[in-house]
């Protein structure tokens, strides 16, 4: 026991370094798999995922998010762990990772493991180490919790496949939205090389689905699908380009999630931009909102943004923005409109839309009912009628609605609010267009 406690000091320092190095990875979701325990070992997964804590930046902590090692052969400009940086380096051993995961999991600190890594010597060596860790965890410790692991671009396809059978989710970070951006900031990385493992995992998942249809107990390959991540604001892409890339990733590669990460200037480098207002958090927020519209609300990237209007209005959420530009479709009659039309009304989410469709079959709705069902009337009131009546008389005019929507107490993060307080409002109020 004494020796174990002695090692802890060492482990503590390693954990500090490798958690700190992993914090820029966004994905911390534990969703997408429902797996019971089966009366042995430890752990289960539930589909909605579980948040176990929240860190000081307000992000959910669900998985033990660590790098296996922060040593790296690459020298990407934006990355804190790049080869030319003088930062303390550390590496775990598979055993140490297992000890941490099991110890934390038993105490219900975490939902599982998020294991990423710098590139130690070569992609193959790194991937092999990740595989060994997962193997130990799944087979020796019989761990049934959630595991999210990075597929290392350039690693041997067989290694990735073997790892995929042990993990719940795999991800490859695109890092930057376009190949040109990647060329500028991470010249050692190639877009094609990154897409190769994504394609492989996609193919594996499709095949696995067919296998599972034939043999119910066939081993599952990456059951929670894959995700990716892009840095926003490090290179000059506009929102339209970013959203197009995201849409492409969802359609072409069947990704479960695309994460966006506001650029943080962690390195001094002449190629990196200096953003005076700090990381573009509000822009990131709007992209996430749009991302939801793509995945759950049946919107296309082309509908939300166009080449002539390539950026989101930071003051309005993308759905309100879209609705204001398409007032000819409103007001919508809640008692009659179909599900997909309801989904497009600001203030009605997919759950409340489902509830409305179910409830109106069995009775007449009024505004009080809608409110109880979770419809945000503050926004929806301009766009709906219920039983042929508006809640109170409102004009279906662009500037009138805009003024009222902005007048509300919606909290805008990132100081966008003060910019508007002394100006005449127009539809094109966008702080980034101000002189």
């Amino acid at each position, binding site marked *: 026991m004494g020796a174990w406690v002695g090692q802890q000091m060492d482990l503590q320092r390693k*954990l500090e370094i490798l958690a700190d190095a992993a914090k820029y990875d966004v994905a911390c979701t534990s969703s997408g798999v429902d797996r019971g325990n089966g009366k042995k070992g430890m752990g289960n997964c539930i589909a909605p995922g579980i948040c176990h804590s929240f860190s000081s930046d307000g992000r959910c902590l669900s998985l033990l998010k660590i790098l296996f090692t922060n040593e790296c052969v690459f020298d990407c400009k934006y990355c804190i762990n790049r080869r030319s940086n003088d930062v303390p380096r550390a590496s775990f051993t598979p055993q140490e990772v297992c000890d941490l995961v099991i110890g934390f999991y038993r105490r219900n600190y975490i939902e599982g493991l998020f294991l990423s890594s710098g590139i130690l010597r070569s992609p193959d060596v790194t991937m092999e180490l990740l595989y060994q860790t997962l193997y130990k965890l799944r087979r020796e410790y019989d761990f049934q919790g959630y595991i999210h692991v990075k597929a290392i671009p350039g690693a041997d396809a067989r290694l990735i496949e073997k790892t995929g059978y042990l993990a719940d989710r795999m991800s490859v970070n695109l890092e930057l939205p376009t190949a040109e951006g990647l060329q500028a900031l991470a010249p050692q990385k190639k877009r094609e090389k990154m897409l190769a493992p994504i394609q492989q995992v996609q193919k594996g998942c499709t095949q696995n689905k067919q296998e599972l249809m034939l043999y119910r107990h066939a081993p599952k390959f990456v059951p929670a699908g894959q995700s990716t991540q892009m840095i926003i604001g490090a290179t000059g892409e506009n929102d339209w380009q970013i959203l197009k890339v995201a849409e492409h990733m969802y359609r072409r590669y069947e990704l479960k999630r695309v994460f966006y990460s506001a650029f943080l200037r962690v390195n001094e480098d002449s190629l990196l931009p200096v953003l005076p207002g700090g990381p573009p958090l509000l822009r990131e927020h709007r992209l996430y909102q749009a991302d939801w519209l793509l995945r759950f609300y049946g919107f296309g990237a082309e509908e939300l943004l166009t080449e002539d209007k390539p950026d989101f209005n930071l003051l309005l959420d993308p759905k309100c923005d879209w609705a204001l530009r398409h007032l000819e479709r409103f007001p919508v009659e809640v008692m009659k409109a179909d599900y997909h039309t309801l989904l497009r009304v600001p203030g009605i989410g997919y759950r409340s839309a489902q509830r409305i469709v179910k409830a109106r079959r069995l009775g007449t709705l009024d505004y009080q009912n809608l409110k109880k069902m979770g419809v945000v009337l503050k926004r929806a009131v301009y766009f709906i009628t219920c039983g042929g009546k508006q809640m109170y008389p409102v004009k279906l005019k662009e500037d009138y609605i805009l003024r009222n929507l902005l007048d509300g107490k919606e909290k805008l993060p990132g100081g966008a609010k003060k910019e508007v307080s002394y100006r005449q409002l127009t539809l094109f109020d966008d702080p980034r267009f101000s002189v």
Partner: protein
Amino acid sequence: MTHVFQCEDTLTGMMTGVYDAWDSRLGHQKVRLTTAQNIDREFFCEYVWVKPDLTKAEKVLRTVRERLGEEAYEMIAYAASYPDERKADAIYRMIVLGLSLPVGRQISGMLTQPDVQLVFELKRKAWHIAHRYLGFVRFRELRTGVLLSEIDAEADVLALIAPHFTDRLPMENWVIYDRGRQKAAVHPLGKGFFILEEVKEEEFFGICNSKKEECFEALWKTFHRAIGIEERTNTRLQGSLLPGKYRRFMNEFSTEKTYA
């Protein structure tokens, strides 16, 4: 004359109330259910104390499950755990209405009915609390190897979260103790869980922690500190997602060591 059936504030208590109120044959308009213990008595009301009865409650629950469906059953079970004085009556009315429908299963979608709406609202509140506790429960390992956790939940979520932990940690002995209600969910290794009532705090809290416990606590605190991005600090967001009332038993937020 209205008859008011006073039930115990548990699912069993309320379901017995539903049974007795129906069985009294006074007519649904002339009965009322409540879980309030100290009520202002009214004129022209007769007060009946309902003694919780497991057989009666099971009969009602079985009927609910068969005729109103799994969703309505879940709604009622969750709503019953939320502290609200109107819940017993709303549940009663919902069951009455549901059983009068040609297709009982439709009741869970009838959100235009005020009683169903209330049950739905309470269920949603209770579900959110229970779901939060799935993540926020913190076990600590005692010298004996037992995992012990303490909560102080607004709703009576113990029976709602225990199945999850039974599935998750089947090969562990663990206890979740609800301080406010003095109840504990106890899970012996390899078996199902059960709920103990009227458990005094001292019964569990005399035993000291295992030797590794302090190390893991320190490791977890280190991790929790290291994972936050300084440039994005947003304690207000953190506060709204993880309100102070949950933090009391979460070791990453305890500044001093509470247990020796």
